[in-house]
């Protein structure tokens, strides 16, 4: 049993720690990739200082990176092992070895539209794993101690009251095993007093992991924020210039620049939202929320966007739908879903939001677009996952992730399906 606990907790810890490093590498990678632009016919990246400073670790891990244009090295470390084929907007994580050390490497690519055709810029950011293995070793030591303590305790207890206690231990082990990597809340199940200290130290160690995780979320939020503010400035400059420029070619270039800026700031915004969601779902701010009110407000705010595409956005409700939840999070989730419907539906169609109350509350967002691809339907709510057929629609693959995480945090479920008459339907049931 002690061995099981050790293996389970160690596996969980590895997963969480690796995820933490990946998150930071991804944030760094995105902040570099987002700055890629074509200027005077050549690709340039003016990435911020924070791109690398967020990679500082206690163990002073080394940092490597490489920037390629269509497979040729533009700058950075040559010979950094990077995947050959990279789909735009996807992220690739890998463990490799570089100059004699084990590194974790994150890669991603972006398609840039230059006047002479598309160019693919790909970036890899890598880091050694000293800090990670330090943390893991420390955790392993603790867990081993815990395991030994657990073993001694459990055999001692077994001598006393084998039958009763072992079932309780089983329950504890099960509840630890069943947890997802996000759930680091303390174990609060009532346990026999002899097991108090054991559970206490287990909880303490979970708390430390939680702290590490939270730090990485903070990093992302900070990074996203730092990207967004200067982008807004650049955008307004570009807009102002656009007013003045007459030459068609220049206008087109400026317009594609504005588009690229929008794309980056949207990605940054969603990263920020996602970090916020992850943080808040652990500290839900419960209050009475009327979802109908939230929706009315959203519909009002998003109607101008819908009108630009000649989409009729309507809300069908049957009286208030009140629920205990976090208003900011719920609003964020619903906004992302409506956003998607407006984005993926063709112009001159209807987008309908419907609330219903049977056993609980359910909200459906229906559109007349192409619907979901059946083959990829169950993967779409993963982080950074985008559909194959998104065309030139701007997106970062976090919208459904946010909606899913918020819904789950409120004890609800999110279902994706296609309507028989065509179009997508996303339902949240609480």
């Amino acid at each position: 049993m002690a061995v099981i606990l050790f293996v389970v907790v160690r596996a969980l810890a590895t997963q969480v720690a690796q995820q933490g490093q990946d998150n930071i590498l991804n944030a760094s990678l995105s902040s570099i990739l987002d700055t890629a632009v074509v200027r005077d016919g050549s690709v340039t990246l003016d990435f911020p200082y924070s791109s690398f400073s967020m990679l500082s670790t206690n163990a002073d891990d080394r940092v490597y990176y490489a920037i390629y244009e269509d497979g040729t090295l533009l700058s950075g470390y040559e010979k950094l092992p990077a995947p050959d084929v990279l789909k735009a907007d996807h992220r690739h994580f890998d463990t490799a070895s570089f100059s004699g050390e084990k590194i974790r490497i994150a890669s991603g690519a972006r398609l840039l539209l230059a006047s002479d055709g598309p160019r693919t810029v790909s970036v890899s950011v890598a880091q050694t794993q000293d800090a990670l293995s330090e943390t893991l070793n420390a955790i392993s030591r603790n867990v081993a101690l815990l395991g030994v303590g657990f073993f001694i305790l459990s055999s001692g207890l077994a001598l006393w009251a084998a039958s009763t206690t072992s079932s309780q231990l089983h329950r504890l082990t099960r509840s630890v095993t069943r947890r997802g990597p996000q759930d680091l809340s303390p174990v609060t199940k009532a346990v026999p007093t002899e097991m108090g200290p054991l559970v206490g130290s287990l909880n303490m160690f979970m708390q430390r992991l939680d702290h590490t995780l939270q730090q990485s979320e903070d990093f992302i939020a900070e990074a996203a924020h730092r990207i967004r503010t200067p982008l807004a400035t650049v955008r307004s400059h570009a807009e102002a210039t656009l007013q003045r420029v007459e030459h068609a070619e220049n206008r087109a270039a400026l317009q594609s620049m504005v588009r690229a800026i929008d794309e980056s700031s949207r990605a940054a915004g969603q990263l920020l939202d996602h970090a916020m969601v992850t943080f808040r779902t652990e500290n839900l701010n419960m209050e009475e929320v009327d979802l109908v009110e939230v929706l009315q407000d959203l519909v009002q705010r998003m109607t101008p966007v819908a009108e630009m595409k000649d989409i009729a956005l309507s809300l069908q409700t049957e009286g208030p739908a009140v629920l205990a939840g976090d208003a900011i999070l719920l609003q964020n989730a619903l906004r992302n879903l409506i956003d998607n419907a407006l984005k993926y539906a063709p112009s001159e169609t209807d987008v309908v939001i419907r609330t219903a109350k049977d056993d609980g509350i359910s909200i459906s967002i229906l559109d007349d677009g192409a619907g979901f691809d059946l083959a990829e339907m169950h993967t779409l709510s993963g982080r950074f996952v985008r559909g194959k057929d998104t065309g030139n629609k701007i997106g970062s693959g976090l919208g459904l992730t946010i909606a899913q995480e918020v819904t789950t945090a409120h004890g609800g479920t999110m279902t994706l399906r296609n309507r028989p008459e065509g179009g997508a339907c996303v339902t949240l049931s609480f």
Partner: protein
Amino acid sequence: MRYLVLLVSLLLPSALTAQEWEDRQVFGTSEAVSLRILSSTDTSFFAPIIEDFIETAPHISVEYLVTGTVDLDHAFRASPADFDVVISSAMDLQFKLTNDGFAAPLVDLDHPEWAQWHDRLFAFTSEPAAIVINRKAFGDLPLPRSRQDLIALMRAHPDRFQERVGTYDVRQSGLGYLFATQDARASETFWRLMEVMGRTGARLYCCSGQMIDDLRKGELVMAYNVLGSYAQAQAEQSEELTVILPSEFPTTMMRTVLMSKDARSPQAAEGFIRHLLMLQETGDALKFPLPPLTQSQNDDLLRTINLEPALITYLDKIKKQAFMREWENALVQEYRNYTP
């Protein structure tokens, strides 16, 4: 081609002497162990440190080689086995050397965490970049307190400053480049200052020493981003010079030392670095004539450049090209187009 270079360097260990040093001095008389130190710091500052070291280890003789920061980086990358200890003020270049695996680890050093990186790179001074002024040439103008003041002064009195202001040529000096990039990162004022200096026909320098010489001679009225430590030493001797730390944020650099991973005398090298860090800590100005580390991590008044991975940002090829272009546009181009 690679093999040819290898062959040449194997056949001609003396090819090294082709390198032109700004200064080269040998300390100690022993022939037993010789320690080669490659440094960007003027010998006058290091002589007392080396002499003190040799007193504790008389079997070691030290060869002290001085060259510019950029040159130093090239020389060391080309032949890491020819040098035991590398000292430079260009923190970014030193950081990259360490990140690229050129430095050997030194463990169990009792040195503050924020002043070292990866057990391999150790900072041992805190030196702000300063504005230095020749008071006589400055006349009755009010002394500037900040970069903003400088800009205003140069705009208001173009005649007084015409071709008599100086700063680093970032194309030649690694330290100049570090100061400039860190300034640009902190505030937009930097670019305005560069533009105004460009219009005033600023003179560009490879090193702080020469800027200070020209200030003393009165050829310069004012120099920007001069190494405060060098200037202070001179200001104490001559009446005319005034050293000013810009009040918004004086960019502060830490001089760093590393031991070559291919050092031929690793024990002597390690001994020397330990001795250097120890002298730094005692704060004895006679034996350690450089400004010791100041714990400025929480002090906004001295913005110390951190030893962190972000230091490689501006060494990136693309970023560097862009920065140089912007810098030349501001400083050099305008100068050429200037018609009095």
